[in-house]
């Protein structure tokens, strides 16, 4: 049992100007679940790209020993042949193809030179059984939820006779139930002899599932901890990841001064013509000045849709109900109306609809409020740089300059740019949709600190989050959303994970 299936020895990988990996060693024992953790930018993804051949042999120094042989992968197809499969955060499925087409895409089962569809369908069915996924094989991947797509990806990997399965943040986009399912599946695969490497930010699940954990920090291996010896604990992991101890990553709530009602939403209904169904039903809630209101619920419960429908309704839903800001009724026809009334919305999907990645930090920060730095519609470039630099300092955005393209920033810093952009609008109410998704512990702590400072200054915050500890740690009040309805309201002091989960699964 103790033979290593994979040994990466003294791996060093340099990019122009940075050493992304500095003499990293990484050893995985056959048949274990090995978690790889570290802050964003610690080098986890780079290490996996070296392993899978994305960075071909010769591009790095050091040795990869897999299955007892020194490997020189020249591309992904080489590593796949050797039995290594990687499932990335951004899934590599073709939405317009069916489940079975996707599973065998790239290694089709052929009968002569033609594809043997009958055999394909039969084998795809077997694979789905292995991953315990119960969907119609002929269904298009487009119509599946994220959790199910993930399972299809795993089925695809299994169909290639994988020996080492690497999952990069597989549960980042999953709700608690789907995450639990996935972890169970990994345990099951382990019992069938598949070795797994799991990259994750969610320390609780790491503790739950890992046999051993390797921590990377700043491109170096910090340590490898063994679960059986009881070395794996949240505090130990955080200590190694950030190089310091964080006792409580949630700042104190004592200094918040909660005032009058800023936003009130009444009898709010929305119907999505594209889906042909009602997505929000009879929603009533309010947010007060200086308060952080958490919106908890499962993925797909309608929280993002609620935020968008309030924020000028760019999705084109049919809406009924009333919004009032500071007591006066409003109708927002476009996000710009909402922005004018003092509402800002930081999106869940930074890369998709949050930032303009090909533009630099300063342009992203000022885009929603160019008027502020313009005279008669002519933008003053100099005040733009000045404004951007102010946010760079106050939000601690780590970038060589504000002229850096946002695509070159790490997730946490991109999120700070998003925050800066919306703070520059001067909002009364800030809606944060999954503000810490996919960012590391250190940056999370910074975001929480910023949020706390903002509410202490009198801003109101709506925080949509699927991470229950975060909802509990930050919120003054919590609304729980389930299937487009608010199923409960809890004061911060009475909220517990159990109560929230119970309301969130209450259909």
């Amino acid at each position, binding site marked *: 049992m103790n033979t290593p299936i994979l040994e990466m020895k003294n791996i060093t990988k340099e990019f122009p100007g940075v050493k992304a990996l500095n003499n990293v060693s990484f050893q995985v024992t056959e048949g274990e679940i090995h978690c790889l953790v570290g802050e964003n930018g610690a080098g986890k993804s780079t290490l996996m790209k070296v392993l899978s051949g994305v960075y071909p042999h010769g591009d790095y120094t050091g040795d990869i020993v897999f299955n007892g042989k020194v490997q020189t992968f020249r591309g992904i197809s080489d590593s796949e042949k050797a039995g290594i499969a990687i499932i990335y955060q951004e899934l590599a499925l073709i939405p317009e193809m069916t489940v079975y087409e996707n599973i065998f895409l790239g290694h089709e089962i052929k009968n002569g030179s033609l594809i043997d569809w009958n055999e394909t369908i039969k084998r795809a069915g077997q694979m789905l059984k292995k991953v315990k996924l119960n969907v119609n094989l002929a269904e298009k991947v487009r119509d599946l939820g994220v959790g199910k797509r993930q399972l299809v990806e795993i089925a695809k990997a299994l169909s290639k006779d994988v020996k080492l399965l690497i999952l990069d943040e597989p549960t980042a986009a999953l709700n608690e139930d789907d995450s639990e399912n996935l972890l169970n599946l990994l345990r099951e695969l382990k019992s069938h002899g598949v070795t797994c490497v799991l990259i994750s930010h969610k320390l609780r699940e790491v503790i739950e599932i890992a046999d051993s954990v390797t921590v990377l920090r700043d491109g170096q291996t910090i340590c490898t901890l063994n679960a059986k010896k009881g070395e794996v604990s949240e505090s130990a992991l955080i200590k190694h990841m950030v190089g310091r101890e964080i006792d409580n990553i949630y700042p104190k709530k004592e200094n918040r001064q909660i005032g009058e009602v800023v936003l009130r939403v009444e009898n709010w209904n929305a119907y999505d013509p594209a889906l042909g169904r009602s997505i929000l039903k009879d929603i009533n809630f309010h947010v007060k000045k200086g308060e952080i209101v958490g919106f908890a619920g499962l993925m797909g419960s309608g929280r993002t849709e609620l935020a968008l429908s309030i924020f000028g309704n760019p999705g084109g839903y049919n809406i009924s109900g009333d919004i009032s800001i500071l007591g006066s009724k409003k109708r927002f026809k476009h996000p710009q109306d909402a*922005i004018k009334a003092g509402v800002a919305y930081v999106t869940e999907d930074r890369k998709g609809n949050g930032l303009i990645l090909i533009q630099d930090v300063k342009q992203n920060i000022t885009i929603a409020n160019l008027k502020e730095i313009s005279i008669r519609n002519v933008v003053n470039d100099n005040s733009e740089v000045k404004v951007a630099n102010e946010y760079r300092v106050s939000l601690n955005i780590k970038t060589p300059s504000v002229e850096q393209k946002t*695509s070159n920033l790490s997730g946490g810093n991109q999120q700070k740019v998003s925050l800066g952009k919306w703070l520059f609008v001067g909002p009364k109410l800030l809606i944060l949709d999954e503000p810490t998704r996919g960012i590391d512990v250190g940056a999370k702590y910074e975001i929480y600190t910023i949020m706390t400072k903002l509410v202490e200054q009198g801003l109101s915050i709506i925080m949509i989050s699927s991470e229950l500890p975060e909802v509990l740690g930050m919120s003054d009040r919590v609304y729980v959303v389930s299937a487009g309805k608010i199923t409960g309201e809890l004061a911060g002091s009475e909220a517990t994970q159990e109560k929230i989960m119970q309301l969130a699964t209450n259909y």
Partner: protein
Amino acid sequence: MLFLQNAGKLLQKNIREYGMYIALFVIMVIFTITTDGIFISSRNISNLMNQTGYIAVLAVGMTLVIIIRHIDLSVGFLAGFLGAIAAIALAFWGMPVYAVIPLVLALGAFAGVLTAFLVAQMKIPSFVATLAGWLIYRGAILVVTESTGTIIISNDTFNALGNGYIPDIPGLNFLPEVHKLTLILGFAALLLFIFNEINDRRKKLAYDFEVLPMDIFVLKIAFTSIIVAGITWVLAGYNGLSWTVVIVLIVVGIYDFIMSKTVLGRHIYAIGGNPEAAELSGISVKRLIYVVFGSMGMLSGLSGILFASRLQSATTTAGTLFELDAIAAAYVGGVSAAGGVGKVIGSIVGALVMTSLTSGMNLMGIGIAYQYMVRGAVLAAAVIFDVATRNRAQ
């Protein structure tokens, strides 16, 4: 040594932007050598610029269209059709030229708004919507010229737009062979440019921002000055500035200012960079589709006017392939097919590159068949260069 290092670094950092200027320069040098200097003669350069005019204004509009991730195939025949309308209004309706030009520009803008309606409101992909426009305007040209065939335009004011030159200052006797007003204008433009650069640098320093090292700054000014002075001298040696060049310069000036300095320009780049993010930042994507296609239509009208004026007539085939020349000019000039990136001035340089190729190869007596192939190869090379430098920048 430090100077060379700085210059090298600057060049490396801005290779994408400077690449096409270098390309244009190289092309001009090659043709000057292969044609024994005829290419660089005042007469040829003047002609070349006039020929570029009607494509250049289309390329300016097309830059914006491609930046917001759309395309407009209808502009060529729209220009041809509007040129025919101008000819009919002058020749048959007896309208004065000062009424015809605004009318045609307004019709063009209206046609652009119609396209925008299909794209923004009906959500039809712009490729399809404007392909429909391509067919419709092609038919429309044939309809309006059906009874007459080619329509001759005899209005001198109108024809001057494509063939005439700005008048010289009377009574100045020095430099008899040279156009004095062109020299004075060129000199004034040069002074304005230098003044602006110095002013900008001063402001940046006042804010404590990073500026170019002094020697590089001087080099940049000197280099640009030589180019501007050179072109001015060459043009002044023939008939001076043509009205076409004046019009193109005004259009480029306005559009470059809008795109690089104003809120509107920023919003257009934002939409091209990420339409969803722009919408959520309070920018109305729909409204800007109307603005961009409307402006494209208006510039098609201008292109039609310049072309009809240059031929002094409206023909049944006017506008053929203009749209592809304009699109090629934009791509050669560094506009990204993925949207969000590109400069108006780049597209003008792209248009100049393409016309220089035609003009130079004509002078060398190369057949039309090979000309097409060379231009195709240059287009491909330009985009390959663009993609390669972009990947390296990341």
